C-alpha cells in the first residue's frame, strides 16, 4: 500500500481503519534461494536490494528478536561519507548517495536530514590530518570544507571557544552528512522487502548452519530446519557466534558503545558536531533531545549496557566543549554491541564454505552503512562477485597485511578503533 499525504487525509476522515500491516508474519517455508541471518538494518536492506536490484525474492530474513532490534534501533543516527582511506572512501560515498534517494525509493519517510557534520580539530597536526581526509573526500567526489576557528564559530556559537580545554583550531565540514530516523530506516527496508515477497521471520533464532562437503545447505532454527541455496550472515555484535556455527573464527571482538539522549528542549544545535580530543559527538533530534555519545566502554561485552566511567567522560567532554548545555538532562542511556574488527573497517566477503557469505566488522559505524552494505552484500550474494565500492572489504587482508584500512592508526587491537 502506497503512502502519501492524500492517503493520510483519507484515513484521517475514516478513523485510520484502512491502514494495512507494514509487513506480513509468514511461517518459514521449507526452502529459500537465500536465507539472510539477521533482521537488523543491514540484513533488511540486503533483502530489499536482493529483491529490487537482482529480482531474487525467494528470500527469508531470520531474526532472533524483533525487526530492527539491533544497533539500527540503538544508535546516534549519524550519516556521513567522510573517510580518509581508499576502500572506505568509495564505499561510504556510494552509501551516502543511496541515503539521498532512500525516501522516494522506499516510499517511507526516514527523515534523512542533511544538516552537516563538523569534525573539530585542535592542533596544526590534526588540521593537516583532516585536510588529508577532506581532500580524499573531494577526490572521491564528496563534499568537504576546511573551516577555520571563525568558520566554526559562525556555524556553532554554542561552543565555548575561549575556555575549552583543547582549543578549537577549526573543523572539517561535511555538509551532506547529517542524521536520519533510525527505526524508520529498518521499517522502510522491511516494508519494501516484504512488499517484494521477502519473508521476514521474527522470533526465529538460528541455532546451526548445515554444511555438506564444503557447501552450505541451510540452517537449523528455533522454528525448525530451513534449506537454502545461499546463506548470508549479517548479525553485527553476534557475528562470532553465528560464524562459529560454520567453523569460522573471525577478527572480531564485541564491545559496548553507549549513547545518550536528553529531555526534549527547543532547538539549539543544527549540525552534528564531533569533538576529537574528547571522543564526543552530539546532535539534536527533531523531537528536541540532544543525542550524543563517545567512545567504547573498551571491554569486550554482550551486555548492551554500559558503566559510569565512560558515561561521565562523555558528559565531561560535553561540559568543556559546550557548557551551555549544562542543564539539559539525560533522559535515557543505552548500549549497543559493536562488532569491532581488528583494523576498524568492515568485512563483506565470501567464506571458505561455498554459498556462505559474511558481512560484519562495522564497529560503531554501521548505521550510515545500512544502504551501502545491503546494496553491496546483495550484489555479492547474487553475482558471487564483489561490488566495486565494497571490493576492499576482504577477510584475508589481516593475514596478508594487504589493504588494511586502519583509519585511526591504532593497529590490530580491536577496541582501539
Amino acid at each position, binding site marked *: 500500500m502506497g503512502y502519501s499525504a492524500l492517503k493520510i487525509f483519507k484515513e484521517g476522515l475514516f478513523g485510520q481503519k484502512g491502514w494495512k500491516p507494514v509487513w506480513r508474519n509468514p511461517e518459514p517455508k521449507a526452502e529459500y534461494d537465500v536465507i539472510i541471518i539477521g533482521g537488523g538494518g543491514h540484513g533488511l536492506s540486503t533483502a530489499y536490494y536482493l529483491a529490487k536490484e537482482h529480482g531474487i525474492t525467494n528470500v527469508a530474513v531470520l531474526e532472533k528478536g524483533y525487526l530492527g532490534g539491533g544497533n539500527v534501533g540503538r544508535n546516534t543516527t549519524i550519516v556521513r561519507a567522510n573517510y580518509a582511506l581508499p576502500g572506505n572512501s568509495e564505499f561510504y560515498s556510494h552509501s551516502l548517495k543511496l541515503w539521498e534517494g532512500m525516501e522516494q525509493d522506499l516510499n517511507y519517510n526516514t527523515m534523512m536530514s542533511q544538516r552537516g557534520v563538523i569534525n573539530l580539530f585542535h592542533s596544526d597536526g590534526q588540521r593537516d590530518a583532516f585536510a588529508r581526509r577532506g581532500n580524499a573526500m573531494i577526490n572521491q567526489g564528496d563534499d568537504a570544507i576546511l573551516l577555520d576557528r571563525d568558520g566554526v564559530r559562525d556555524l556553532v556559537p554554542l561552543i565555548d571557544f575561549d575556555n575549552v580545554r583543547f582549543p578549537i583550531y577549526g573543523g572539517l565540514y561535511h555538509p551532506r552528512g547529517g542524521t536520519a530516523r533510525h527505526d524508520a530506516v529498518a521499517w522502510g527496508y522491511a516494508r519494501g522487502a516484504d512488499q517484494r515477497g521477502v519473508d521476514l521471520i521474527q522470533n526465529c533464532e538460528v541455532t546451526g548452519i548445515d554444511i555438506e562437503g564444503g557447501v552450505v545447505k541451510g540452517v537449523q532454527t528455533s522454528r525448525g530446519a530451513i534449506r537454502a541455496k545461499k546463506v548470508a550472515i549479517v548479525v553485527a555484535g*553476534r557475528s*562470532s*557466534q553465528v560464524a*562459529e556455527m560454520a567453523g569460522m*573464527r*573471525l*577478527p*572480531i*571482538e*564485541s564491545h559496548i558503545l553507549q549513547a545518550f539522549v536528553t529531555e526534549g528542549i527547543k532547538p539549539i544545535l543544527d549540525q552534528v558536531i564531533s569533538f576529537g580530543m574528547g571522543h564526543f559527538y552530539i546532535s539534536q533530534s527533531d523531537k528536541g533531545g540532544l543525542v550524543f555519545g563517545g567512545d567504547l566502554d*573498551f*571491554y*569486550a*561485552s*554482550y*551486555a548492551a549496557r554500559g*558503566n559510569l*566511567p565512560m558515561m561521565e567522560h562523555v558528559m565531561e567532554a560535553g561540559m568543556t566543549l559546550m557548557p551551555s548545555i549544562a542543564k539539559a538532562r539525560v533522559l535515557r542511556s543505552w548500549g549497543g554491541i559493536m562488532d569491532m574488527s*581488528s583494523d576498524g573497517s568492515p568485512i563483506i566477503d565470501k567464506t571458505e564454505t561455498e554459498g556462505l557469505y559474511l558481512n560484519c566488522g562495522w564497529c560503531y559505524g554501521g548505521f550510515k552503512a545500512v544502504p551501502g552494505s545491503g546494496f553491496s552484500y546483495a550484489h555479492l550474494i547474487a553475482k558471487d562477485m564483489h561490488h566495486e565500492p565494497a571490493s576492499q572489504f576482504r577477510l584475508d587482508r*589481516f*593475514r*596478508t597485511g594487504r589493504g588494511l584500512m586502519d583509519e585511526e592508526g591504532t593497529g*590490530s*587491537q*580491536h*577496541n582501539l578503533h
Partner: protein
Amino acid sequence: MRLPCPLCGDRDRREFYYQGHAVALDRPARDAGDGAWDDYLHNRDNIAGEVRDLWHHEAGCGAWIEVTRNTVTHVVSGARLVRGTAK
C-alpha cells in the same frame, strides 16, 4: 564496574586499561607462520560468556592482570597477576 586487583584489592574500572583476550599471552614463535600470527593478532573466540581477558592497572600498581569475567553478565569471578603466569 569493579575489578579485583591481586595487589590493590577491588578497584573502580576507571583505574584500568583494557587490552583484550588473554590469547595475547600465547605469543607464537617468530617463525610460527602467518596463520599462527593471524590468529594471535586478529582472530578471536569472542565468547558470549565467561572469558579470560587482560587489563593493566594503569592508574594503580602498574600490574598486568588476567581477569575471568562473564561478557554477558559482567560478573567477575577472579583475577591473577600476569607476571609469572604467562607461557
